[in-house]
């Protein structure tokens, strides 16, 4: 293989004219983190709501929850990204569609919403599993004490369910973070997109993607470490 290794490439000025290649990758990393956090915010709350809907005694609520989960987890993320970005502005009223298209940072907002809705379907399943793993008597005890359905979930079921599903939720968070790379297809200049443009400008493909890989690994390890601390912080004395 005829390849000119050049690890100092990161400190060369990028053709964009505002900093080095390293700055370029780091700005991509910032977009990755921003997209991951914002979409997780949607995924967590919407997913919890959908997960709860699937555990309520109401058939209508179950139906809505099931429909949501099956719709959003059975369509490839890439297809969903295209649907949100290219199709949605065309099918809504023209004025609204134009407003969406002219939005500054449209790829970012689209990616946040798309990933949020997609990951919510996965979070919903974790939340449902967590609630259903609790003894049936827990909900009964809450109900018997006079809690409303909302209060039973708020004070009894969810605090326990979230503790149980913390490890798989960490995985979902990591998946969500890595899935942000799909947003490069709609023009979001996140980490993978930046690594690719660095390779195109400099032809240093191995350096560019080695750096991107390392950055992904580091950020994920930070998340895993934080999750470990969180697990310890919310552990219940006397359990396991």
């Amino acid at each position, binding site marked *: 293989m005829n390849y000119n290794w050049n690890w100092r490439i990161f400190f060369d000025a990028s053709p964009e004219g505002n900093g080095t290649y390293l700055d370029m990758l780091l700005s991509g990393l910032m977009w990755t983190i921003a997209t991951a956090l914002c979409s997780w915010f949607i995924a967590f709350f919407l997913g919890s709501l959908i997960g709860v809907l699937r555990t309520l005694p109401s058939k209508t609520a179950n139906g809505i929850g099931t429909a949501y989960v099956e719709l959003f987890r059975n369509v490839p993320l890439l297809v969903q990204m295209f649907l949100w970005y290219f199709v949605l502005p065309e099918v809504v009223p023209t004025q609204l569609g134009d407003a969406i298209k002219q939005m500054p940072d449209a790829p970012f907002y689209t990616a946040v919403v798309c990933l949020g809705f997609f990951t919510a379907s996965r979070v919903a399943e974790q939340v449902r599993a967590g609630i259903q793993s609790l*003894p049936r*008597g*827990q909900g*009964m*005890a*809450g*109900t*018997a*004490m*006079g*809690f*409303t359905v909302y*209060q039973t979930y708020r*004070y*009894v079921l969810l*605090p*326990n369910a979230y*503790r149980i599903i913390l490890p798989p939720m960490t995985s979902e968070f990591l998946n969500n973070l890595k899935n942000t790379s799909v947003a490069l297809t709609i023009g979001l200049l996140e980490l993978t997109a930046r690594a690719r443009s660095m390779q195109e400008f400099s032809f240093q493909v191995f350096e560019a993607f080695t750096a991107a890989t390392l950055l992904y690994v580091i950020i994920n390890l930070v998340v895993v470490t934080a999750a470990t601390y969180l697990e310890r912080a919310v552990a*219940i*004395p*006397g*359990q396991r």
Partner: protein
Amino acid sequence: MTSTPMPAPSVKESVADAAHAPRDAGLQPGSLVSGVPAAAPGETMISIDNISKWYGDFQVLTNCTTKVAKGEVVVVCGPSGSGKSTLIKCVNALEPFQKGQITVAGTKVVDKTTNLPKLRSRVGMVFQHFELFPHLSITENLTIAQRKVLGRGAEDAKKRGLDLLARVGLSAQADKFPGQLSGGQQQRVAVARALAMNPVVMLFDEPTSALDPEMVGEVLDVMVELAKEGMTMMVVTHEMGFARKVADRVIFMDRGEIVEDAKKEDFFGSPRSERAQTFLSKILQH
């Protein structure tokens, strides 16, 4: 509520667990019941009128009818699968039923205008598996429903909770979590938690069935005390000793029907039905 200062721990023979003795003082003298006037016999507290319940095609309760008077202690017994737990759970509408009516302290259970959470908050319930909330400390377990359901202030709720915790002899455990307590201790906390709501009726669903044998006594002691103080109680249990000691009436159920509903003396002396006789002879053999 008697506001006497906390009495010194009494020596109760039931607290046999020497290892726990310093931390676990056992049942304390004083009133467990408050806000409930002493029993005025005769007044009906729970009225179960001809209720039937099905799971799909399977009928679990068939035309069950009985009454529990204020201050009365009624023990419900019968073989497993006879519907006794289901019946008691119908009283606070934890289990829906398709036919009949239940009235608790004048409030109809099946009625669109009935505020079920409010009704349930006046009916204390103790479960077979305790069902303390594992993520909350003992104190929080005792106070959360007082605060969120009855709207009591944090201080009031805590005072009431700790008071009751002292009465069941577990003051030292206030800051622990349910997982750090023995089964018997957890069940005593569960009784205190139910009493903290000032219930007018207490339901017990096999409160000692999940306990190690040496812990049954400490829970029964609390229940006996409660009965003595005039609490209206409906108790599903296999503890015939408890039934003999404190029950006013015994209901015997089999295959979803109330087969026998008799005064304690009559039930243990001469059960009328053959099924009750067989059940008693089996359960009292040992």
